């Protein structure tokens, strides 16, 4: 269902981002650009794994929310199941980016 709401759109993948960055920075080694990109996402992931928040003004903020353990139900069988406590990564869009998405 969510698929149809997004429709068919172009996607920029990590490798396309790396390619684009190497075009913009011809003086850098591709290897260094790859490390640069993975370092950034790795730092964010590591911070979230510590339960920390990552705040990138203008872009957005990543945080972790806790969902406590609960008794859920299998919607198909009606059987109750124990759902353990879990942590959900969450992203809140920054003001500047949110505004950019809505200016033509």
């Amino acid at each position: 269902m969510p698929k149809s709401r997004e429709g068919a759109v172009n996607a920029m993948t990590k490798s396309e981002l790396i390619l684009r960055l190497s075009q913009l920075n011809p003086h850098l080694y591709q290897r260094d650009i790859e490390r640069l990109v993975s370092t950034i996402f790795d730092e964010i992931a590591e911070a979230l794994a510590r339960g920390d928040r990552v705040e990138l003004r203008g872009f957005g903020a990543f945080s972790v929310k806790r969902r406590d353990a609960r008794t859920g139900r299998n919607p198909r069988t009606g059987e109750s199941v124990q759902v353990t406590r879990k942590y959900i990564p969450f992203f809140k869009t920054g003001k500047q980016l949110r505004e950019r998405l809505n200016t033509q």
Partner: protein
Amino acid sequence: MGHNTVTRAQLSEAVYQEVGLSRNESAELVEVILNEISDALARGEMVKISSFGSFSVRQKGQRIGRNPKTGEEVPILPRRVLVFRASHVLKNRINQALSGAPAGEAA
């Protein structure tokens, strides 16, 4: 949760340490990356970072909202919102670190 906040400064420092570019260039490149991602999203593209997650833009229709303070009805105009979906790798990494078990699995 959230004892500490990581900002651009720490990301640039990590790039400086890991990649060995100057501090200035590291900071600039962090900015360039965020801008490239923002530009793609503003064009309506999706951004997929493997083993991290994906950002997509969703069109929302107009609806009637309410000012929670005054109870007054106000139209919420159609708008585009950004949705982040964390990858399973990221979800599992976080759950393993914080509770010692992968996401949603019984301990």
